């Protein structure tokens, strides 16, 4: 019973880290990419210019650092928990994304989109009540 609770606790902690750092990285990247703007065309020169501008922008690197923290939490939790558990559970981040997009990026969010975000959170709640691990330790 204790091992079961311990498994759930460490799963929740790492998923919380994913929920926090994933959207943070996404929003910072979003802000950086908006600043850079769309690629002018698919011509090699324009593609090179686009990537050069992207990877010489500080905001982009801040976003990448957040996403790397997210990724470490992600691979650690996947060492024991089901992918089909972790993936939907991490969708809680959509609520956070909507809030960040609304308050930080000042994007308009329609009531329909808010309803969608709420449903996503409800789905995550349902998935979250299943057991995090349903397989043997090594599927291979």
């Amino acid at each position, binding site marked *: 019973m204790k091992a079961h609770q311990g498994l759930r606790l460490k799963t929740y902690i790492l998923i919380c880290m994913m929920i926090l750092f994933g959207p943070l990285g996404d929003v910072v990247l979003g802000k950086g990419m908006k600043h850079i703007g769309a690629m002018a065309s698919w011509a090699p020169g324009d593609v090179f210019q686009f990537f050069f501008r992207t990877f010489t922008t500080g905001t982009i690197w801040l976003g990448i650092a957040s996403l790397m923290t997210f990724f470490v939490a992600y691979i650690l939790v996947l060492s024991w928990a089901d992918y089909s558990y972790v993936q939907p559970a991490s969708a809680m981040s959509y609520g956070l994304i909507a809030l960040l997009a609304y308050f930080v990026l000042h994007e308009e969010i329609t009531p329909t989109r808010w309803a969608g975000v709420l449903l996503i959170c409800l789905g995550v709640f349902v*998935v979250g009540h299943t057991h995090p691990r349903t397989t043997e330790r090594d599927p291979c």
Partner: protein
Amino acid sequence: MLTQLLYIFLIVFPGTGGEICVSRAMKQVGEVTDFRPRAIARVIGRAMKVPWMWIGLSMMALGFFALLGMLSVANVSFVFPATALSYAVGALGGRLFLGERVTPQRWIGVLVVCIGVTLVFLGKG
């Protein structure tokens, strides 16, 4: 719109397939019980020696660049929920490729997530 659909396809399929490969690699590495920075670094080192990790990372990189491309043409609050179609693909992939027991309750949760995603799509301002 066609460009956005192409981006969504590139984010969802290679992205989710890559995550499934990474999940497989991490199951091979084994359950992490020590969370000190050194131990975590060792786990990452071990994971990088598993071929599934590299296959997964390559596929995820493709999804990531598609994500960067899409972020430059659409709002962030639209892009991420729209790509959540990957949850249905992920549950199916977990069952087929990782042998996970996706219970009816878990499927219901995934279905609710997908309905939410559709609403987010329809609610694009």
